């Protein structure tokens, strides 16, 4: 399988895609309550965004299904449309995926917490993710479970994938940088997360969102000391700001972002890409760096 070949090839740095939401806003589209619904309402826009990433050199892009698990859809009263949304998402990315590239099934957080923060159980998480996985399994080459802040929720998602699929898993937690190191908001340390993710035998250990690329360098540096697993990094392009017209923008320069990614590759990151605030332009800059290595 292509992804495993890439992982085995020491000279290969795998280029992921950049932000989906940021690109949707740029096209002047109000995403309504959940961007995932645009898979049905504006499929051409979603395909166009995927295509823009494949075209500038992404080796793999992820489906627009960040919020398309049962629990999350339920909050928007869309749980009965889970099949339709995930199937359309597959259709939208398949249309534009290049022959040498891969499709990644994107699984985001449920938005629900376990006690004492919320009331959700591991079983509820697992069943919610499983509903999504069963649909996406028909078209994806591998999985990206991302932006998870509770290692318990991550484990539930991993179980949901492994029960329904044999495809590789990239497991990305989202961390804050604290004076004591990198922790999720639920208090899971980088060390603890990596240890558990190793035990759960995911294929790639990752981090995405929350922190910008400059802070992600330190996280990769720490991670490399803790594991021999391949590492994935999808940081933000700084923090969002609002301009005078009420439009969001990210002020961290693309050049600086690409330089930070270069540092992460030098440290040993195997998969690189972007999260909030990144664009095809960002990915193109990173492509140039990878090609020059």
């Amino acid at each position, binding site marked *: 399988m292509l992804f495993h070949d890439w992982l085995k090839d020491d000279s290969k740095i795998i280029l992921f895609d950049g932000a989906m939401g940021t690109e949707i*806003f740029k096209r002047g589209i*109000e*995403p*309504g*309550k959940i961007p995932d619904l645009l898979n049905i309402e504006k499929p051409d826009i979603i395909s166009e965004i995927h295509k823009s990433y494949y075209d500038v050199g992404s080796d793999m892009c992820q489906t627009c299904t960040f919020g398309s698990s049962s629990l999350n859809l339920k*909050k*928007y009263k869309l749980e009965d449309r889970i099949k339709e949304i995930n199937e359309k998402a597959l259709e939208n990315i398949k249309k534009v995926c290049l022959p040498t590239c891969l499709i990644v099934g994107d699984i985001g957080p449920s*938005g629900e*917490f376990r006690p*004492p*923060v*919320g009331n959700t159980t591991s079983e509820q998480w697992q069943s919610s993710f499983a509903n999504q996985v069963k649909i996406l399994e028909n078209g994806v080459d591998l999985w990206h479970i991302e932006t998870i802040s509770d290692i318990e929720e991550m484990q539930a998602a991993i179980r949901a994938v492994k029960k329904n699929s044999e495809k590789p898993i990239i497991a990305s937690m989202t961390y*804050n940088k*604290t*004076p*004591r190191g990198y*922790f*999720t*908001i*639920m*208090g899971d340390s980088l060390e603890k997360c990596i240890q558990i993710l190793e035990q759960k035998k995911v294929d790639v250990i990752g981090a995405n969102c929350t922190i910008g690329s400059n802070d992600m360098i330190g996280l990769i540096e720490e991670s490399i000391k803790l594991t021999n697993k391949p590492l994935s990094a999808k940081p933000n392009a700084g*923090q*969002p*700001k*609002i301009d005078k017209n*009420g439009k*969001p923008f990210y002020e961290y320069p693309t050049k600086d972002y690409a330089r930070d990614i270069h540092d992460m590759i030098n440290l040993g990151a195997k998969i690189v890409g972007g999260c909030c605030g990144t664009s095809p332009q960002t990915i193109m800059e990173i492509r140039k760096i990878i090609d020059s290595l």
Partner: protein
Amino acid sequence: MSQEKFYEEISDAIVNLNEDKATELANKAIDKNFNILNVIEVGFGAGIRRVGELWDAGEFFLPELMRGAKIMQDCLDLLIPHLQGGIERKTLGKVVIATIEGDIHSIGKTIVATMLRAYGFEVYDLGADVPAEKIIDEAIEKNVDIIGVSALLTTTMLGQKKVIEILKKKGISNKFKVILGGAPVTSKWVEECGADGYAGNAVEAVELAKSLLRI
């Protein structure tokens, strides 16, 4: 045991997230007819402030913060009916809080509501995806001092501005203090909206609420 020692024990029970101990001490204060106001402010108040400081310092995380606030709240529910001289003194102020329409992210808003309650504010949490008009209607009906509006998405942040615009249109913007929160919210955005304040986290939100009401 001296009063100071007793208050310290309460504060420690909160910081150690020891629910049984905190409840036991609250009941003891009631049984012994201690000054309940002091028990709340010097004992429990100090405890939750220490929890807040530990959260600020990155020592405590969301589960500890929520658990500490919950224990505090449960003990306050026990103690408040026993306040000497009636329960009038119990509230620092009234707050209506909501995540704005189009945005279903409720966790940050819930944390702020929980902390405000734990510190002694009377909080009306309207939940998530709440229209600006409804937030204002509730604020008027409940006669609150502060309106808190949360937004996690850069697209829904505009709804925060709408709340202030409606208040101005109705000519009642001087009746309420409006505070904004959410990951993409900055002090610059607050200034642009004409809101009264911004807090980066729940502990800061409590301080902000107190300073706006000159407490």
